[in-house]
């Protein structure tokens, strides 16, 4: 065992270990639902379901299938009426899929309506194919980094790539995951209804252009989003493109402008620069990477932007983008974001519009139930129940995922869907969005959960508590140094008075995988004084978080017992 594993000198060390061991087995309150599981299983399954990500979780226990449909009797709605389904989900993306699987597990007769392809944005035009491209770009980066390879004693002749081969890899991955998703639902007995779903009235949905009308006790809207293209920008799919086109990788331009420096823009800048393009970012706000913790953003800029073939214009809007034609390059007109004065005109080979995503809710028939969208988003309460134009809840109608705009992440949609299924099967459930991690798969990766430092400080001021910050560097981690990837930082934002974790931000090797220790701790309400006693294998990257928790200074009188599991 190495010295880096030694426990910090905490007065209650031995006591703490003892107590937390006990707690692990004793403090498992068995709530009325899920009685058929033993206590430990309940805990594991109940919470892990919240964390399920994208598409990886494709096979769930299928024992629920054998159960008879009993859900109608669980309902609080007095009028006995027979429905085609207990639950109808409009949209077979990751959110709808997660909800469907959980619904089957809960014994609901479930159908899912899809007008396009199963898998939605994430699987077909988002997270999944982009991970394939990023896997390639990561390797290219390694193979091209001569001094990095040299430091490891490796010699590699000039690395090259075949564009079509890369594009095929992304496409094959998407179709493989799509098939997995489809098969998993079919195997569980979820009916997949093909066609666009339109809500005709309460509990009634028309599928496709045919007159097929389906009734369901509860309906979940999970129609997702499409790339948002600001007006003035002409997308031709060749030289002015959105992420939908970029993921097909039909060309690798010499010079591409990326409008927007959020997750999508940042990931594509990683892909394009690794494949040899030069990149110009156009960001409306004054800082690149808005939305990230400022300290992480600054470090990320130093590693991901400054040394690469990237420049940027901040505080400007792209008011007009004209695709390349008649032998002219793509032109981008920029105005100052504040003064609206024309500022510059760029001439580039291609432009990628990564200005965010717009909800896909048109044609859903929301007017039939008197729901007015807000900027396209379906208004919902914290339980994902749809709110109509008078501010009243629409019974039996829920909306999850990008369509409600609460947190536009695939795994958030899935968690929301599971939360809805919990509710319609009789267990009240409110999803804690602050426990949902997010990741940006650049090289190295960025990940985060909870509040950023400015958000935490604002909250602290309002509620009158103190905030402390702890930081550890990947430079001090054995495994990271073995990989010769010491660049990175983990940052913990916490309350020193009671040890509550408010936020964790990581920039470094495999950050996206490392964040879950923190997000699980937030979801389960684990305090720092408890988690710091947990043991991490040595040498692993997870010790970055181990050290982070250990370096936090929690006041001595903070209780170190695990609090009652919080409903999340």
């Amino acid at each position, binding site marked *: 065992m190495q010295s880096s594993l030694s426990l910090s000198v905490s007065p209650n060390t031995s006591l703490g270990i003892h107590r937390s061991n006990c707690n692990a087995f004793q403090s498992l309150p068995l709530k009325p639902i899920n009685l058929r599981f033993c206590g430990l299983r309940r805990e594991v399954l109940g919470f892990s379901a919240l964390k399920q990500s994208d598409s990886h979780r494709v096979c769930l226990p299928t024992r629920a299938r054998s159960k008879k449909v009993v859900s109608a009797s669980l309902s609080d709605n007095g009028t006995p009426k027979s429905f085609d389904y207990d639950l109808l989900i409009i949209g077979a993306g990751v959110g709808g899929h997660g909800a469907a699987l959980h619904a089957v597990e809960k014994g609901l007769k479930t159908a899912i309506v899809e007008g396009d392809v199963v898998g939605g944005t994430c699987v077909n035009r988002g997270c999944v194919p982009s991970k394939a491209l990023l896997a390639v770009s990561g390797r290219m980066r390694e193979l091209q*980094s*001569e*001094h990095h390879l040299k430091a490891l004693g490796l010699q590699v002749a*000039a690395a090259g790539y075949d564009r079509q081969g890369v594009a095929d890899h992304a496409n094959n991955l998407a179709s493989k995951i799509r098939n997995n998703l489809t098969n998993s639902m079919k195997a569980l007995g979820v009916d997949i209804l093909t066609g666009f779903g339109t809500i005709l009235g309460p509990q009634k949905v028309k599928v496709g252009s045919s007159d097929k009308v389906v009734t369901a006790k509860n309906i979940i809207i999970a129609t997702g989003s499409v790339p948002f293209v600001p007006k003035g920008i002409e997308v031709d799919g060749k030289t002015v493109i959105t992420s939908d086109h970029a993921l097909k990788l039909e060309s690798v331009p*010499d010079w591409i402008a990326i409008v927007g420096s959020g997750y999508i823009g940042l990931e594509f800048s990683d892909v394009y620069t*690794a494949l040899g393009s030069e*990149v*110009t970012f156009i960001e409306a706000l004054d800082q690149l990477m808005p939305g990230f913790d400022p300290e992480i953003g600054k470090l990320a800029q130093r590693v991901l932007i400054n040394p*690469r*073939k990237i420049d940027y214009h901040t505080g400007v809007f792209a008011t007009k983008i004209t695709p390349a034609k008649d032998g002219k390059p793509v032109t981008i007109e920029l105005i100052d974001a504040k003064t609206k004065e024309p500022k510059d005109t760029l001439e580039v080979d291609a432009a990628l519009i990564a200005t965010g995503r717009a909800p896909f809710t048109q044609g859903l028939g929301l007017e039939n139930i008197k729901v007015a969208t807000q900027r396209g988003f379906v208004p919902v309460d914290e339980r994902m129940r749809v709110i109509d134009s008078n501010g009243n809840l629409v019974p039996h109608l829920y909306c999850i995922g990008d369509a409600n705009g609460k947190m536009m992440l695939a795994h958030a949609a899935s968690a929301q869907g599971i939360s809805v299924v919990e509710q319609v099967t009789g267990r009240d459930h409110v999803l804690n969005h602050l426990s949902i991690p997010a990741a940006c798969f650049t090289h190295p990766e960025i990940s985060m959960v909870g509040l950023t430092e400015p958000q935490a400080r604002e909250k602290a001021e309002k509620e009158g508590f103190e905030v402390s910050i702890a930081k550890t560097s990947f430079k001090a981690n054995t495994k990271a140094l073995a990989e010769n990837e010491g660049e990175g930082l983990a940052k913990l934002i916490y309350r020193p008075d009671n040890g509550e974790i408010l936020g964790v931000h990581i920039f470094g090797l495999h950050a996206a995988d490392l964040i879950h220790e923190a997000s699980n701790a937030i979801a389960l309400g684990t305090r720092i004084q408890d988690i710091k006693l947990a043991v991490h294998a040595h040498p692993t990257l997870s010790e970055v978080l181990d050290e982070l928790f250990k370096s936090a200074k929690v006041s001595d009188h903070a209780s170190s017992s695990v609090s009652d599991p919080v409903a999340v």
Partner: protein
Amino acid sequence: MASPFLSKTTTTISFSSSVSNTLPWRFSHPSSASFPSKPRRRISTVQAKIREIFMPALSSTMTEGKIVSWVKSEGDALTKGDSVVVVESDKADMDVETFYDGILAAIVVGEGETAPVGAPIGLLAETEEEIAEAKAKAAKSSSSSTIPSATAVSPSPPPPVSNPAPAIAQPPPPPAKAVSEGPRKIVATPFAKKLAKQHKVDIGSVVGTGPFGRITPADVESAAGITSSKKTVAVEPAPAKAVAPPKSAPPAAAPLPGSTIVPFTTMQAAISKNMVESLSVPTFRVGYPLTTDALDSLYEKVKPKGVTMTAILAKAAAMALAQHPVVNATCKDGKSFTYNSNINIAVAVAINGGLITPVLQDADKLDLYLLSKKWKELVEKARSKQLQPHEYNSGTFTLSNLGMFGVDRFDAILPPGQGAIMAVGASKPTVIADADGFFSVKSKMLVNVTADHRIIYGADLAAFLQTFAKIIENPESLTL
């Protein structure tokens, strides 16, 4: 066919005066030579606010820190909260921010150097007027090695050379329209801008050759005189940094009083680039004395018919090469011989501030009169900037003749993409003792061939030179 030249396709070459002129030194970019260090106003008061930037203590165990990089350069305006420098402590790299507004007047501890905690690493001036004073202070307060700005000395411009050694290079094609369109917005790619900043190249003086006339990284590199890093994709800036301009891009240092910095023209940058590239080829040299009496008398005979000495030498070399194809070969990949089907003799020609190599194609097949005619055409075209790319980049063997200047022997640099180059000295009367002990006076000329030893060995060159000498000494065959 491998070519030592940068050119892709062009129809124009940007030189002006005639080939045989002595070359006037041109100060083409006097403005870019100015340096911001000139004092704007005489400062007599000492009340100026100059603040020192200290090496911060980034952790409790840190005693000294290494400067990873300066985020800002000297002369940059700083606002409170800006990151100025990145410091590596024992644990992490941290951005160090300024607490004051001002101008980064001087960097005292350069990148990669180390300083103890609390030591000044840079100076912050409040106004422009104080920069000079801050610089003086920086020079005084630190040892010489740590003030790059005060001690590094740039070489004064080289004296005008009328006929540089046969450094064979071609200018990249200047975009034909760039001038005629008048003032135009500068479009440079992100990496080109970064390189320009890194190598302190004035982006406004770089001629863009990319699509739509934009300035590409390669343009900046050639302007800075750097061998371009591998073409595929080099994301890491490290290689470029390592190949810091050795001599061609003067470091950003105060020039010696009275010296002037003149940036390369595109042609000169191309020459510089080719010369650096030539260092990767293992060459060796073999010299050979020739008796030229017979040649001289032949020359006297054919001169009235318009035959030039250049044509005679080219023809002789071509005939010798026909018997020794390996000397006409090229090594392209370090693994094989590439035998050229044609014998194309490139001849180095000094041109206004530069050098170009018009090519006599199929010199072994044409007779002396046709070759001479052809040569006159090439020279005329070079003068009027009409040379086509194949007329200056298709050579398989190069001739360089400095004999007419009285040079008796010299050493040529092998142009990339060719197997050998011949340096011809002056022919002069020499006392000779023959095998029987009889003295006589004969005209002797020294030639010196530089060759790529990966494919051409000593015996190959010796045999080639023997053949060449036989042809020169019995020149009748030349006129056949």
